[in-house]
């Protein structure tokens, strides 16, 4: 009998202990203040930079312990939705995709940085990132780094086909088809165009002057079915049919795989994709910014992140000190040296002067952001754009599908 009672007590205790496991062990280590920084993506910010940040921050701020956690892009939004609203769980400083910022600025998840902007430097940019981080004339999130998508190509494939890197978009489209036709390899792609890859595909819409949606008065109006957008979509669809053997339901992930396998002559990706190309192909790898309709660089989708302080954080001062360290000359230089566009343009030159750095800078010069609606994140999380491009690639009527998805975009953006 007694044993049974003991057993029962043990059961209760263990059940309680199990449920208690989830609670945080913040600040438990005697005297040290734990500052939490959440960075997006498993490898977007190189290891070298995070190690430097940890060491430098703890040296400059005695009694602190900087804990950097990397959150996968796919989990970032759901994790932030729950963590940011709870003072016990929130990261103190967090990175967020530039186009995702408006979702959180509009609900007061960020600390207002308007008065402190000057302490971060007098020359913060890019402007479009600042706009994405502002709401009601207050600055909530600031640029962390910018990146841009450009074209990677095989020099050998170009030489074999007897063509030069293209000077304008029409040339590029032609080159992509030629590269496929001139290759003997089965299933070879002149340019790798996965069907659902809207982040790269959107460049063709932007290049012809089209857009995803624009604000007219108080309302967002879908522009996928505008004549300019349709022109770009038709061109992209032709590429998908005639220059690419990528799956029609393929995503923009790991587009370097077919290149590494010798199955594609060109692919388009953010600058860091360079480091995923296999070493024995490195000498063969070249890069250029996607050319515009009339030459120059086409407007591409501006990649990159913003960074801000959680409004619920209890360590506002420590958090701002971390933000200042990120905006320090040393860190800005390190970002640039690693191919990430620095928020302080004085360091852009540090990105180097090889063809990759030039392509990156050229591509960023005309880059565009997605609609700055607080509801844009929903478009991304519900994969509306992936669906749309996938359907166009799959052979659906372009104009009809575009009109249908304009309506879907408007329904979400105008909530």
């Amino acid at each position: 009998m007694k044993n049974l009672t003991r057993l029962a007590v043990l059961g209760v205790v263990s059940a309680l202990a199990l449920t208690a496991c989830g609670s945080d062990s913040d600040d438990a280590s005697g005297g040290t203040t734990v500052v939490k920084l959440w960075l997006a993506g498993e490898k977007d910010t190189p290891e070298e930079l995070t190690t430097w940040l940890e060491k430098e921050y703890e040296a400059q701020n005695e009694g602190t312990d900087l804990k950097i956690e990397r959150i996968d892009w796919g989990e970032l939004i759901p994790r932030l939705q729950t963590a940011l609203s709870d003072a016990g769980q929130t990261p103190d400083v967090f990175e967020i995709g530039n186009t995702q910022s408006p979702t959180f600025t509009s609900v007061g998840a960020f600390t207002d940085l308007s008065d402190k902007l000057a302490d971060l430097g007098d020359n913060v940019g890019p402007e479009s990132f600042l706009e994405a981080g502002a709401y009601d004339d207050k600055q909530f999130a600031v640029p962390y780094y910018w990146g841009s998508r450009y074209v990677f190509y095989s020099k050998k494939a170009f030489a074999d086909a007897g063509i030069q890197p293209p000077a304008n978009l029409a040339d590029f489209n032609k080159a992509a088809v030629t590269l496929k036709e001139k290759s003997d390899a089965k299933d070879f792609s002149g340019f790798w165009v996965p069907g659902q890859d809207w982040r790269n595909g959107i460049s063709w819409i932007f290049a012809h002057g089209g857009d995803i949606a624009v604000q007219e008065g108080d309302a967002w109006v879908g522009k996928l079915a505008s004549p300019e957008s349709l022109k770009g979509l038709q061109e992209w669809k032709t590429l998908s049919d005639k220059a690419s053997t990528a799956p029609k339901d393929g995503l923009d992930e790991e587009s370097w795989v077919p290149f590494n396998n010798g199955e594609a002559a060109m692919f388009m990706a953010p600058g860091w994709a360079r480091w995923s190309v296999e070493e024995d192909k490195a000498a063969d790898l070249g890069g250029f910014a996607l050319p515009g309709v009339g030459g120059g660089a086409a407007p591409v989708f501006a990649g990159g992140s913003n960074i801000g302080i959680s409004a619920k954080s209890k360590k506002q001062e420590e958090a701002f000190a971390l933000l200042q360290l990120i905006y320090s000359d040393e860190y800005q230089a390190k970002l640039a040296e690693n191919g990430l566009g620095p928020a302080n343009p004085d360091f852009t030159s540090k990105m180097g002067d090889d063809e990759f750095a030039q392509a990156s800078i050229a591509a960023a010069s005309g880059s565009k952001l997605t609609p700055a609606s607080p509801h844009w994140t929903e478009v991304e999380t519900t994969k509306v754009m992936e669906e749309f491009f996938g359907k166009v690639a799959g052979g659906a009527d372009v104009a009809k599908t575009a009109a249908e998805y304009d309506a879907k975009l408007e329904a979400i953006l105008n909530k």
Partner: protein
Amino acid sequence: MAQAMTTPDAPPARTDPQPPRLRTRRRRPAPYLLLVPALGTLALGLGYPLVRQVVMSFQEFGLAQQFGTADPEWIGLDNYADVLTDATTWAVVARSLAFCLAAATLTMLLGTVVALLMRQLSTAPRIVLQVSMLAAWASPLVASLTVWNWLFDSRYGIVNWFLVTLGFEGMDGYSWLANPWTFFLVAGVIVVWMSVPFVAFSLYAALTQVPEETIEAAQLDGATRTQRFRFIVVPTIRPVLSIVMLLQIVWDLRLFAQIKYLQNAGGTVSETNLLGTYLYQLGVAQSEYGVASAVAMLMLLLTLGLTFGYVRSLLREERTA
């Protein structure tokens, strides 16, 4: 309930003829204490969220309310009205029901066939079969989903390669996930593959309980194989059959991980949402916590409705047993 209350303290009357007054003092707390951890965890883990869900389903609750910049507003049945008048909801419900019933039925059929097969096999092949089924059952969800996704990969997948080798040239580079029909075909294969082992093992265990003598007697009386199966085997294993079917329906109605994974791998989200992923899309992706709660309530009612018959017949069997 009344029966449960009296059982633990009902002492053998012969050895313990004490008056009821004393008996109440000697009431043993242990059995109830043993229930506390389970009930406590259940109340914490399910009770609180359930109450919260019911409350939120009557509120306007989005990201602004989550961050406390706006108060949740009571809007009565508005969320329910929105959900019930939205054609998307009904499309999702119909799709979920159809997929759930198809997958559960197929799982049951295959599971029964495998269980019967295990009874017929000699020891060595039976153990091989059991081990491979156990491996399928025990393999981690994401790992097996990754493998299945590779098998059906449009470019490098072995399924397309095999079909092309067989002479179906049109399957070269076929995107299985792009079309909702083939998407659910792939999803169905994966879901059934994952569930068959459980059904097969449960039914195999039940089959070992079918009395040999009855079978033999029936055989002597000239009952055919089909008759023996229908009139002796099935009635004997019926309780297990119905509880396994009940579980399958509940599991297949709340599918989430498999569908979500395939959607991320290339499916058209709006055309392949089942209740689980639709809920996720509303609640997590769009932060419409109020509306999502209403859909969750609907899903709860649907599950109860679908399984009500089974639960009732289970209870009846328990009573007659």
